């Protein structure tokens, strides 16, 4: 078993195992500097060779939902492919005002309640930070990747990608990632019949999320 260790985004360590299936399995574990599992991390693979149609990859849905219940976004991180539409239903009995000022997609769904606005189409690759104008603490992310091979880590920081054998750039993204665009993307070769395991160390920054009222943080601070 070959293990490639990917430290931060500077080193890579892939363990290649023999596999018989068409789609090979790449297991990725995300850990922060203290060795804690990092859930809700976007892990995706960009194919280098052999070139093939990315559209042939696994696409779960054409339409994705980011729901709002009890003044929170239900899905905090949603990964989609470019061109996909996302709908933002509101299941609260008050209005919400979803917005994004992210360069990847700037939009606004001003104050709505019962009628779900038209789906928003995300055609640019990148992270889109979502907020609610009237509830500062509400926060969610749409991450648009130009690859069919992506997934989110589970609560133990693990994820399993099913990808055909070939060479890939393995990328991770997390809302608190300090350096989201590494200069040197990490490359890995997946061989047929082999199972690869990847351990990714992430350097996370603190998040300044407005606290949900009532404020009770230290120093009467407004962030958590």
């Amino acid at each position: 078993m070959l293990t490639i260790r990917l430290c931060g985004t500077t080193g890579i360590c892939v363990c290649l195992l023999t596999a018989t299936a068409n789609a090979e399995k790449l297991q990725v574990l995300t850990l922060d500097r203290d060795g804690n599992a990092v859930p809700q991390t976007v892990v995706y693979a960009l194919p280098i060779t052999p070139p093939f149609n990315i559209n042939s990859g696994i696409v779960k849905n054409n339409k994705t939902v980011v729901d709002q219940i009890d003044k929170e976004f239900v899905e905090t991180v949603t990964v989609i492919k470019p061109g996909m539409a996302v709908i933002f239903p509101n299941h609260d009995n008050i209005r919400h005002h979803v917005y994004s000022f992210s360069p990847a997609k700037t939009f606004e769904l001003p104050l709505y309640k019962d009628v779900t606005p038209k789906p928003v189409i995300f055609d640019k690759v990148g992270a889109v930070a979502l907020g609610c104008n009237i509830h500062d603490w509400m926060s969610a992310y749409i991450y648009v990747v130009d690859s069919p091979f992506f997934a989110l880590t589970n609560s133990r920081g693990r994820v399993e990608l099913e990808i055909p054998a070939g060479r890939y750039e393995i990328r991770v993204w997390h809302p608190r990632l300090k350096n989201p665009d590494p200069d040197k993307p990490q490359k890995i070769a997946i061989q047929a019949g082999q199972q690869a395991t990847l351990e990714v160390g992430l350097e996370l920054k603190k998040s300044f999320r407005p606290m949900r009222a009532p404020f009770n943080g230290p120093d009467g601070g407004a962030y958590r």
Partner: protein
Amino acid sequence: MCRFGFRRFRNRLLFYFIGLFAFTLTGVFVVVEQVFKQNTEANIRSELVVTERVFSQLLKERSTQLTQWAITLASDFAFKKVMMTGDPATISSALFNLSKRIGADAALLVSIDYKLVADVAHPGANGQLFFAAPMIKQAEEYGAASTLALIDQQPYQLVTVPVLAPDPVAWLCIGFKIDQALLMKLKQLTQMEISILSETPARIILHASTLISQPNPELNGIWQKSAAEENFFWFYNKKPYLSRLIVLHKQTDFSIAALIQRSWDDALANFYRLRWLLAGIALSSMAIILLVGAWVARTVSKPMQILVKGVRAIGLGDYKYKVNLSARDETGELGRAFNEMSGQLAEKEKIRNLLGKVVSPVIVKELMSREITLGGETREITALFSDLAGFTTIAENMQPQALVALLNDYLTQMGKQIITNNGVIDKFIGDAIVAFWGAPVMEQNHAVLALKSALAMQRVLAGLRTQWKKQGLPGLLMRIGVNTGLAVVGNIGSIDRMDYTMMGDAVNLAARLEGANKFYGTGILLSEYTYAQVKDVFLCRELDRVRVQGKRQPVGVFQLMDEHSRINSATKAHCEEFAAALREFRQGRWLQAEQLFTSILLEHQDDTVSQVYLVRSQQLQLNPPDARCDGIYDLQK
């Protein structure tokens, strides 16, 4: 040399009272001043520390409040939307609008890579690296941060918060000036003067102050002073201020500090008031002490004055003088003691007077002057013995009362003559008088005085005789014997009962001579020893040579005639005739002697001595003495 002294007790007392009080007061004052100043300094030091904390707390709370405001502003959705337009002029305008909502003095927008996006006050600075980037880095860690910074040479309190959309997209910086108003607020809270200074290697700049009006050159050394001492004295307008420098912000190239100061004079204002109060108390206390002291002095000096008066009266011999000091204290006791003393002195004086009557005043004086001891000394004196012839006979025929009256009269008159002539009456023995001269007081002229006294006594007696004759009393004659010689004089007797008297052969001879008058029919007889001393003053005729019992040496006996000055020629001739007759008698020419004495007696029938010699001449003619006879008669008692 002039010595300091008090003429009045009151002044002395007041001097000591006031002196002691002033000393105590000065001591108290020095201690109070010391303690007060120490306390004041300690208080100011702790106040400086408190002020430092208050100031820090004030800045912190201000910063917290600013942060809250900044968060509110940063949450403004419209502003976020403006920001996303990327139009610098609009962003700057919106920023200005935001800052005016809270009255901020500075507002800046910084990108997440620390570059100025907008600065209300400096539109041209866009794109430059933000000058307080370390604050942003701190805010990245803690969500918000604050710092002190100089903007256009003005101290500002800056806070920064992220603009969240909902992740940080920029940093909003809001600044407030640290100006006079803030310092005045602090001064109201803490009573401290406060100044804001900044230090660069080149110079020190004064930014705001509640105290210092002009940039002061003395500020230059203040960092060094602060480094040497946490709290230090700093002079402004020549007035001392206890000061403390608090560095609020420090960077490599400059620092911002607050100088907090408390006026030393103001802090001691209470003490100065206390000082006046103490001075007032001291003065009024001194006035009270003066009054009380004067009163106390009076209570002491008045009895003393009374006593001085009393002592003077005693000194003048007024032993009956009593002082009136009725107080129950020591002065009263002194008064009572004084009165007892004067009583005892009066008693003594009484005794002394009494003694003078019993004993001769001269002896009293002598006895008083020294310790009375038994014993005597040998001195040359003149002794006088007198006796009234035939007194015993008349005494038997008189009533005792009348006799005593007579005797008293006689003795008083005689005694007066003796005293007048400085004689000492030794004793009265019935009608007899014993007196002497030359003791206890030395008297060179004792023999002359004794004879003067004898003559005076006989003269006075002659007067008395005339008186007595009128009363039908017989004329009494007085015999006087006088002798001069060595005798023992002194206190003789027992230790309880003694006389100042005389003893010796010379005394005995005087007594014999007094008795010998009977034999010769004379009034005053004296010995040759007395005669030797008085012959220049008195005329005396030699009568005989006698041998006193127990003595081999014969003694010449003389009759006192009178003072030379009072002798007439007849008496003088009489004496010379008698002397011639006595010469014949002594040479054994009895017949010639008989003729001469007969001749004298023809003219002077009352010359009893010549009669004695006439008889003696006649007898010797009939019975001539043998060869052994020396012509000396024995003098019997």
